[in-house]
């Protein structure tokens, strides 16, 4: 009878059933989609972090950047390389213009170095499983033609003759500024650090015997974009390096943490940063002890910025960062609100249903139905309505997730500056050009293919996929049942309070 009555009620009062089920379905679908996308975004963030910090890195240590003083304008010093060309620099050509070429290897913008001895300090801290240090650098190459300023330099306050020569023979100039990121790292040490998240694509990786040698490993996508292969030479800071291998990120088709990897000691020497490193990667002995390890490390190195993966995840920027924010804020709130609304609809409709059926329940009680049976009937109807809605919601949710996975939007994620690695390098490159803007105008010169290298290192492209876990489905079913039970409990409570005498009294 329970089943028959249930079926008859749900089919007989279809409008109510459909409204409750639709409300529940929308809420459940939303919960599933938000949950899956959130998982997808978390995965993507982890992928970005992995490509920048490597697998197994629990904590990174950097030195906070001191803000530049007001007089230090134009992208010099710590903010980027500066090119000074003296009057006689470069090779003079026939028309008086000069061809100049300069290559600088400097500490990337937003990067502050610390003593390499910090690594030893870190390794001594209790709870550190492994640690490695790198030096993040930016190599900027400047190739260009400068016009002759001969007449201008000689002429006094009078009329200034137009400059001559240059690339357009009218005093214009042509620059080609190319910059890429270089990471100095201890050769052979791949256990922790950026290279731990990479796979060797071609050639070999840096070995312990490479210390002091001018050899480089390239990010495979950078190597491809620059048409550099294994065995070729690459000029870094004016020194020729032999490319011995290329690496690509594990499990993603994006870029690795840096364009170029070279031995740490060589990097320190070429950038005049002897005894300096910029980032220390730390692997904790136990994943559960990361927070306490962070505190110990902070105590050992009070001036450094100690960041856990969780701290870093909050720093993922770009569309991935926005997606993360959107999902965690809007998505969660929307789910909660829609869920609450669905529950409320179910409860209100159940209460009004019980009120409308006062005579019906009174009659059943009058002919001997126990309170428990009447309450069970009301609750059963509500739970079934919730379940129907839940199942429809799971179907809608899965379709929504499928759409997300088919569209698979590509999210770009980098790390906000201040952490000293990839993200800040692009920033460094940009600032460098900013410093030259004034000159650009005056010379009417053209800057060539600027910062593509730096950009590719700064941002990681991740295709968003929204995985549906059994846990999410279970959660959805549980929520649907919970909503039904809640409505059923309240409706059942109302029904239990009906007195059987109502059967005689309540007139329809």
């Amino acid at each position: 009878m329970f089943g028959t009555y249930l079926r008859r009620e749900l089919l007989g009062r279809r409008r109510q059933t459909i409204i409750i089920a639709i409300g529940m379905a929308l809420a459940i679908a939303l919960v599933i989609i938000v949950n899956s996308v959130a998982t997808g975004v978390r995965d993507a963030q982890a992928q970005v972090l992995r490509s920048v910090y490597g697998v197994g890195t629990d904590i990174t240590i950097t030195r906070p950047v001191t803000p530049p003083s007001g007089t230090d304008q134009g992208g010099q010093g710590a903010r980027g390389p500066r090119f000074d060309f003296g009057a006689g620099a470069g090779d003079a050509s026939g028309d008086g213009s000069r061809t100049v070429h300069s290559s600088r290897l400097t500490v990337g913008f937003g990067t502050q170095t610390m003593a390499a001895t910090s690594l030893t300090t870190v390794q001594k801290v209790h709870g550190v499983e492994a640690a490695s240090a790198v030096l993040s650098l930016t190599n900027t190459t400047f190739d260009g033609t400068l016009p002759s300023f001969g007449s201008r330099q000689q002429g006094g306050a009078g009329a200034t003759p137009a400059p001559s020569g240059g690339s357009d023979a009218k005093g214009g100039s042509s620059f080609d500024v190319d910059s890429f990121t270089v990471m100095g790292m201890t050769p052979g040490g791949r256990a922790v650090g950026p290279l731990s998240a990479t796979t060797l694509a071609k050639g070999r990786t840096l070995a312990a015997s490479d210390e002091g040698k001018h050899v480089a490993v390239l990010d495979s996508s950078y190597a491809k974009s620059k048409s550099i292969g294994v065995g070729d030479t690459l000029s870094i800071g004016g020194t020729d390096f032999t490319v011995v291998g290329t690496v690509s990120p594990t499990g993603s088709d994006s870029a690795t943490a840096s364009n170029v990897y070279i031995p740490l000691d060589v990097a320190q020497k070429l950038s005049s940063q002897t005894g300096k490193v910029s980032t220390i990667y730390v692997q904790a002995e136990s994943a559960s002890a990361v927070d306490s390890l962070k505190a110990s490390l902070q105590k050992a190195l009070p001036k450094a910025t100690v960041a856990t993966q969780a701290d870093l995840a909050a720093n993922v920027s770009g569309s991935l960062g926005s997606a993360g924010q959107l999902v965690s804020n809007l998505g969660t709130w929307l789910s909660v609100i829609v869920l609450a609304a669905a529950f409320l609809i179910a409860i209100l409709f159940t209460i009004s249903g019980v009120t409308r059926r006062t005579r019906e329940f009174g009659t059943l009680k009058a002919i001997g139905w126990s309170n428990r049976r009447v309450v069970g009937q009301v609750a059963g109807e509500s739970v079934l309505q919730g379940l129907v809605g839940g199942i429809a919601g799971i179907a809608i949710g899965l379709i929504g997730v499928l759409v997300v996975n088919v569209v698979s939007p590509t999210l770009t994620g980098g790390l906000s500056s201040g952490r000293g690695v990839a993200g800040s390098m692009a920033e460094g490159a940009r600032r460098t050009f900013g410093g030259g803007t004034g000159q650009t105008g005056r010379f009417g010169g053209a800057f060539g293919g600027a910062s593509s290298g730096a950009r590719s290192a700064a941002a990681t492209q991740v295709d968003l996929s929204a995985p549906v876990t059994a846990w999410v489905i279970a959660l959805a079913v549980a929520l649907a049942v919970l909503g039904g039970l809640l409505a059923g409990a309240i409706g059942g409570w109302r029904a239990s309070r009906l007195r059987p005498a109502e059967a005689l009294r309540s007139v329809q």
Partner: protein
Amino acid sequence: MYRLKNVTKRYDAKGRTVTALNDVTLEIPDGQLVAIQGPTGGGKSTLLQMLGALDRPTSGTVELGDASLGTLADSRLTGIRGTEIGFVFQGFNLIPTLTALENVETALVPLGVSADERRDRAARALESVGLGDRGDHRPAELSGGQQQRVAIARALVKEPNVLLADEPTGNLDEDTRDEIMDLLEGLWRDRGLTLVIVTHDSAVARRAQRRLHIKAGKVKELA
């Protein structure tokens, strides 16, 4: 056998007290056909609620056989309603979403009989009220008289000792009224029921063995 002693029922509603039954003492022997008449608001339905174990008196005792309906626990009253008392309501009170057969079946649910037996007995009860072929109809698909027949089948399917009817013909035209009264009278005669009918209709009341008149909560026997 009903025994009512000094039964008073008061309702407190909106700050004033209504005495619906005022010191009623009354006996109804098994198998009697009793008609209850009286002006509206006189207390007829209230008396029926006392007899039907739907409500408890404010004071006094109501006994059905050995059971004291005023003091038994709710669950015992539910049991008595489920097994011993059949109800027929003025407004039929069928469950609109269930078929005629299923409506009759609801009365057998408290008895805990098997689904097959339930269906069998319900079908036979429907047949006995002349609706054997309309079992799969919803109440809305039946005429008023047919609906009341279904309600009577529902009241009788559990073979109660007592049948209480509160204005069972109040919503019906004269022909149908006589038809239903014929049916009730026939069942009463066949089964030896105690049948108590509340009615406004003197034509109905005339068919009873005994007529009671209730006015302002006081019961009077009519000759």
